[in-house]
């Protein structure tokens, strides 16, 4: 079984400041890793994913996450946030063994509040 822990429920930050949203996972098998974002009054959207290869993955809007196998982490970072980044962010894993790779285990979510 897998589990995901997002260490911060809320992260307030000023505009143009850097931010890191932390995610740790536990699993007895290899996993795929995801970050989803939920903007106010919208559905969940995939932000970025790690399947294999380079451990550093990037999104089109400036976020990046690094898979650290030894620390079982997949922290999300952005060097300079915008007001429009205000949203709920969810870290998720799925195991590589199951035929149902859409069965995601989500963390509790982190609310990123960007202040002007």
């Amino acid at each position, binding site marked *: 079984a897998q589990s995901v822990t997002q260490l911060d429920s809320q992260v307030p930050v000023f505009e143009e400041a850097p931010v890191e949203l932390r995610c740790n996972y536990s699993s007895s098998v290899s996993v*795929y890793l995801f970050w989803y974002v939920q903007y106010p009054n919208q*559905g*969940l959207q*995939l932000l970025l994913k790690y399947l294999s290869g380079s451990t550093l993955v990037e999104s089109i809007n400036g976020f990046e996450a690094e898979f650290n196998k030894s620390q079982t982490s997949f922290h999300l970072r952005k060097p300079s946030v915008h007001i429009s980044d205000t949203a709920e962010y969810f870290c998720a894993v799925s195991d590589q063994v199951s035929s149902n790779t*859409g069965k995601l285990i*989500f963390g*509790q979510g982190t609310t990123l509040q960007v202040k002007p």
Partner: protein
Amino acid sequence: GAGVSQSPRYKVAKRGQDVALRCDPISGHVSLFWYQQALGQGPEFLTYFQNEAQLDKSGLPSDRFFAERPEGSVSTLKIQRTQQEDSAVYLCASSLGSLGSPLHFGNGTRLTVT
């Protein structure tokens, strides 16, 4: 094209009533998933379809929960004899089904059981 569509957007049911929640996935997506999201929590997996076949229903919390996708497109999640603990947002997602295909989520149905 259109994204995943869920209806109704909001549903209020009295305890003991049956409810039916509808999901219209993206055209051509073979995989369909239902998730339950309680207030302040991340989504939790309920069940998975590949076309019309329900391949995984390990997350359904009780036999009061039933899902179907008879023609491999639209899916319905039915909850019988609703209880207050069933109050949550029910999310539907679809994908192409290949490895690494992203899940496309609908906006969800918020169910409140009074």
